[in-house]
């Protein structure tokens, strides 16, 4: 059927991606922009490590160091890790539950474009008078006093990107509740879908706290209010609470899908079902719940008092229990399995000890009394890089290799993948393991330079060399991706062999309507079940019929662009620029006007007809 599978020109392809509401294309957009920001954040990390490689270094100035440090953290969390998580959620979750798309395809696209314009806005600060420089936490006592527009870029950029994340979370909650195929009960959902579900719930309840914090900061910096101005009755601790009420769930927002990716990879390459599936689900939900009860462990030294500190310390340590359940379940899944050490599996196996190391230092930091010693030292830096890199980044790299064939229909080179894995794994431990000791020896975090003769030289040099290894690993990964796409060797439905969940039963990449017939889910690991009964594909739950599809739309991009424009107006208005207020108003009018258009123009979608589906048996090319 030619209209479904025709070749398009370059312009038409670009227009298609700008207006797409297809979850698989939005996944690719998230992957590309998240990957770009990951490279940018990595570059900033390398600049930090070059500066700190030797004592008394003058590679960059103190002010620039603060900007690079702030942007490294902010970029990696908000603009790299979050969108890459969303890339895999978009690519995989609808396929895993047997859906043809997400519940709100339009909102899905809007979420991406809000993130994209927020990220671009934040990074324009480099070219427009300086980046934010108050750390990724941007504590009010520091950021209110920061001169120039750096913090304004932070506040407005994150506000726009955060709105996108919030609606993305709502979208996945509804998708997973309402769009599951017949037979896909909650306790038959693959674990990645479960973690995406819990993560979406965390996003829904955590991000509004950040929204309010950012609003208050915006009002204080741009509209003359006094929330954080102590002289006028304000209180800077309010920011710290809001930031961490958001910020602590945020680390679980990131790490739960990482657990989910590993919970798919480990059974796949052990040829065994996941050990303790129901306890894994239980642990995921419990971690999500406890994740909201522990934010003040970031604030032990603020002076909330011994009672508050003790409660938050105990709650924090309690999270080790469900996390421990997960670790043992992964180990017991591998136990006695017939293991294949592909690149994703190498990352999964390396993740377990690396993440446990980060968990153990987490318990140390949770002891409120001891935290007074660890606080603001490199020990903390080592801890959170062990959980974020050893947990989240390992999962994202593993997921990139694992899901690449499903997203693009080609297979990344496993040999290059393994080289890149070993460089990254060795480099990671070289960089961060020694930082525990630097911290315990008293090296404070966020310092621009250290002096010779205090015993910090060797540790910092080793750490910087490790960073170089990680940089090399990422370059090889990029090379691998380019070579794979240039060669363009197409692969089949289940390229890794042994696929268990239903996304491996359909073509790679899937046709734009995903499932020609909605599948009937007959148990956990539905595709494996069918294979064990000697069948080639899934059991259909319906006869072939017309499929309803959503229309593409440019409005999500326009809505997001309006906020991007308005942000410039809001930022320059306090400088007394005459053009600023009109720009603010025009930007908001663009956004509200396109929302109005969305409301009043009927959008019923369209139908793919049964006859076209019958002809489209090689539909993967669409």
């Amino acid at each position, binding site marked *: 059927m030619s209209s479904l599978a025709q070749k398009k020109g370059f312009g038409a392809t670009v227009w298609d991606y700008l207006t797409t509401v297809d979850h698989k294309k939005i996944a690719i957009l998230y992957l590309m922009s998240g990957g770009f920001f990951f490279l940018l954040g990595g570059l900033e990390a390398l600049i930090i490590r070059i500066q700190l490689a030797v004592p008394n270094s003058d590679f960059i100035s103190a002010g620039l160091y603060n900007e690079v440090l702030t942007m490294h953290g902010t970029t990696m969390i908000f603009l790299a890790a979050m969108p890459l998580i969303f890339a895999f959620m978009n690519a995989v979750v609808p396929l895993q539950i047997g859906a043809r798309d997400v519940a709100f395809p339009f909102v899905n696209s809007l979420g991406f474009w809000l993130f994209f314009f927020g990220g671009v806005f934040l990074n324009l600060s480099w070219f427009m008078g300086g980046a934010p420089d108050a750390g990724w936490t941007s504590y009010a006592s520091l950021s209110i006093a920061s001169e120039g527009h750096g913090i304004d870029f932070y506040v407005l950029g994150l506000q726009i990107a955060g709105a996108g994340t919030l609606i993305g979370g709502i979208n996945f909650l*509804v998708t997973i509740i309402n*769009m599951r195929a017949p037979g896909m009960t909650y306790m038959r959902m693959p674990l990645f879908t479960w973690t995406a579900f819990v993560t979406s719930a965390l996003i829904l*309840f955590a991000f509004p706290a950040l929204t309010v914090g950012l609003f208050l900061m915006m009002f204080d910096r741009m509209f003359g209010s*006094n*929330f954080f101005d102590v002289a*006028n009755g304000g209180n800077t601790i309010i920011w710290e609470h809001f930031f961490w009420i958001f910020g602590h769930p945020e680390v679980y927002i990131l790490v739960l899908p990482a657990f989910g990716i590993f919970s798919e990879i480990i059974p796949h390459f052990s040829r065994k079902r996941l050990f303790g599936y129901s306890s894994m689900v239980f642990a995921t939900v419990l971690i999500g719940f406890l994740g909201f009860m522990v934010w003040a462990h970031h604030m032990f030294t603020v002076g909330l008092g011994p009672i508050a500190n003790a409660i938050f310390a105990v709650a924090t340590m309690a999270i080790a229990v469900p996390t421990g359940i997960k670790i043992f379940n992964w180990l017991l899944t591998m136990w006695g399995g017939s293991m294949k050490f592909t690149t994703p599996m190498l990352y999964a196996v390396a993740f377990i000890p690396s993440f446990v190391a980060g968990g153990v230092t987490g318990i140390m930091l949770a002891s409120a009394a001891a935290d007074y010693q660890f606080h603001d030292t490199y020990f903390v830096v080592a801890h959170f890089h062990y959980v974020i890199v050893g947990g989240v980044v390992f999962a994202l790299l593993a997921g990139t290799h694992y899901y690449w064939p499903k997203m693009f229909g080609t297979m990344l080179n496993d040999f290059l993948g393994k080289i890149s894995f070993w460089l990254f794994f060795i480099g990671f431990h070289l960089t961060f393991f020694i930082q525990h000791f630097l911290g315990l020896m008293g090296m404070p975090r966020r310092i621009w330079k250290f002096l010779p003769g205090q015993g910090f030289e060797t540790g910092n040099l080793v750490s910087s060399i490790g960073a170089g290894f990680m940089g090399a690993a990422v370059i090889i990964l990029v090379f691998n991706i380019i070579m794979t796409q240039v060669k363009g060797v197409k692969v089949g439905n289940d390229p890794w062999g042994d696929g268990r969940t239903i996304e491996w039963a359909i073509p790679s990449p899937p046709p734009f309507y995903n499932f020609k017939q909605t599948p009937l889910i007959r148990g956990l690991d539905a595709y494996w079940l069918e294979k064990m009964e000697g069948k080639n594909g899934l059991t259909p739950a319906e006869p072939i019929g017309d499929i309803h599809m959503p229309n593409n739309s440019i409005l999500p991009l326009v809505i997001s662009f309006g906020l991007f424009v308005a942000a410039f107006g809001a930022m320059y208005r306090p400088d007394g620029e005459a053009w600023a207020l009109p720009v603010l108003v025009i930007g908001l009018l663009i956004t509200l006007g396109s929302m109005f258009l969305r409301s009043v123009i009927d959008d019923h979608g369209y139908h793919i007809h049964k006859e076209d589906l019958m002809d489209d048996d090689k539909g993967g090319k669409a």
Partner: protein
Amino acid sequence: MHAEEKFTPKTWPASPEKATLEGKNKFMGFWFFLGGETVLFGSLFATYLALKNKVPSDSHALTTDIFDLPLSFVATMLLLTSSLTSVYAMYHMKNYNFQRMQAWLLITVLLGAGFLGLEIYEFNHYVHEYGHTFTSSAFGSAFYALVGFHGGHVAFGLLWIISLMLRNAKRGLNLYNAPKFYLASLYWHFIDVVWVFIFTVVYLMGMVG
């Protein structure tokens, strides 16, 4: 059932807002959205309670000085009544009586606009009588942030309901626009519930100091 299908009062489904998959998704997604909004307003309430009466000097007005209970009582009654009239509108929507639904929505909008008018008068009064502004103190910032966010929601809700009424004035009800009306009324109820808390926490608790 189909989004563009034509109906009579007899064939109209019992829960038209949830009769299509799209409607079901919107219904559930909007409840989740309101969950997020609850956290948003919860954070603003927390900020207000932390900064209530926090002023730089004795010359600044406090809660006991500025609030006028009769005024906020009338505003409360207007908004509570508008919530009731939006329920009547939804009752007629479920009975496929488009004209009556529009009439009750119009009354809802008028009551909401009355509330907004009183709020604008109130803010204007505080600014000119007491010098109590967004920038005068942390208390002022927190007060206008909380009550102003609510007022902004009311304004957005009014625009939303008016747009829906005008857009569908000529074509009546179908399963495509029934969820839209229903969500707007859910949003309106939510605004009303938030106001009940504002009336209690800000005005009543403010009167006792």
